[in-house]
């Protein structure tokens, strides 16, 4: 990612926008909706908010125009240039112009207004073009973008957060700790740090996710190197500093826990109806947070770990099983405290600070002691 020369940015977080005129290719509602959705893309990963005004000068004036349109940078008729926008600042700065010689559509049969608007509004906020072809800020229009699964690339998120920082912590529940901790520092963690520990580990559609503060490593078994991302790049509504996460493969869903709440995600989509309270799963009120969770594919049950105890949850019946909690060390000899855990190849992997234990559930014994980042090819 890059910024404009001189790095212009808005000096306030509450910005105004105005839709000055409309294309005839779409209804007014469709234009408004595309612009709102495009602004939301950036609002979700920054502290920026956007309020619409209907008269006067807004920070971001949005208009459709043909050929020469008053800024000495004429549009070029159908094709090639689709729009342009100006870096943050007064007057024409911050404004976004769309070439009305294009056929604007809400899908990709013509030129998708949402995609172009999201890109141009990136300029309005201070982002220059990116050389990353996966980035929204790459200069070429990509008609093959999957609109249903649209998300910013990590490069876009890094760029805009370089200018404005991340969004404020979710105010959802006052019981959820929101103070920044050492795990939530701005600096991305070093994957080969021998002291590296994880907040939570889960599988996701064949990959392994290692959560740490605001970041997540994605490790595919097909590639040697893990890829580090901001959690917010994939799931803007998910909090940082997770306590536990696990994937119920039969439901194609990852459940992520923080404090006494949990969220459900399917691929890149946050599931409706969450966060829910962990007490809806059957935990006693004495449990304030979980440490780790493992879904056992074969049995369709989930182990939840908190302090030195664990519970077993029947995913088929959706009930916490009787006879729990039990002491972790009694049923998992050699395992005392668990920060994070996941199952792979029939083994359980328990993480505690910078150590990792490979546990054979059939033999009921620890088979290997590893560094926590043994999956990172360090």
């Amino acid at each position, binding site marked *: 990612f890059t910024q404009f020369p001189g790095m212009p940015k808005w000096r306030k977080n509450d910005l105004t926008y105005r839709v000055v005129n409309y294309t005839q290719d779409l209804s007014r509602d469709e234009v408004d909706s595309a612009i709102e959705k495009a602004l939301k893309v950036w609002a979700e990963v920054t502290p920026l908010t956007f309020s619409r005004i209907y008269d006067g000068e807004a920070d971001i004036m949005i208009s459709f125009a043909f050929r020469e349109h008053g800024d000495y940078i004429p549009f070029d008729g159908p094709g090639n240039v689709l729009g342009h926008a100006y870096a943050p600042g007064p007057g024409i700065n911050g404004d976004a112009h769309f070439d009305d010689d294009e056929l604007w559509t809400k899908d990709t049969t013509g030129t998708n207004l949402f995609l172009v608007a999201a890109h141009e509004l990136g300029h309005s906020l201070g982002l220059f073009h990116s050389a990353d072809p996966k980035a929204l800020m790459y*200069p070429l229009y990509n008609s093959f973008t999957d609109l249903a699964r649209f998300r910013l690339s990590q490069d876009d998120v890094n760029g805009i957060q370089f200018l404005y920082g991340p969004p404020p912590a979710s105010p959802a529940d006052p019981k959820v700790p929101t103070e920044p901790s050492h795990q939530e520092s701005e600096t991305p963690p070093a994957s080969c740090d021998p002291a590296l520990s994880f907040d939570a580990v889960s599988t996701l559609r064949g990959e392994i996710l290692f959560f740490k503060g605001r970041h997540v490593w994605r490790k595919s078994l097909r590639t040697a190197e893990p890829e580090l991302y901001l959690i917010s790049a994939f799931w803007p509504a998910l909090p940082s500093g997770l306590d536990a996460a696990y994937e119920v493969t039969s439901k194609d869903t990852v459940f992520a826990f923080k404090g006494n709440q949990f969220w459900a995600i399917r691929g890149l989509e946050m599931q409706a109806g969450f966060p829910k309270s962990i007490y809806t799963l059957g935990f006693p009120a004495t449990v304030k947070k979980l440490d780790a969770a493992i879904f056992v594919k074969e049995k369709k049950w989930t182990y939840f770990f908190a302090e030195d105890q664990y519970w077993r949850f029947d995913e088929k019946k959706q009930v916490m099983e009787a006879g729990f909690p039990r002491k972790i060390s009694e049923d998992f000899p050699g395992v005392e405290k668990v920060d994070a855990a996941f199952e792979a190849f029939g083994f359980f992997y328990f993480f505690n600070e910078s150590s990792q234990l490979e546990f054979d559930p059939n033999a009921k014994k620890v088979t290997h002691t590893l560094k926590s980042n043994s999956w990172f090819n360090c």
Partner: protein
Amino acid sequence: HPLNGAARREDSGMELLQQYLENYYDLGKIVKQLVRTPGDSPVEKKIQEMQKFLGLKVTGKLDSDTLDIIRKPRCGVPDVGQ
């Protein structure tokens, strides 16, 4: 007359390229006349800059991949500092 046709297509591609480099890669008008100069010309450097930025194979030449890319719809903001 296929040779003439091919030559016309090449000319049109070069014009398009020159316009693209002027619009988005800050290719000054001063080098306009050098557009056909082989070797280490400002145009070749600008083509390389463009190819590198857009993730193309860096040849410094107007090859078919480069021509395809410059014909694609895009944002009108230049790719390099103004």
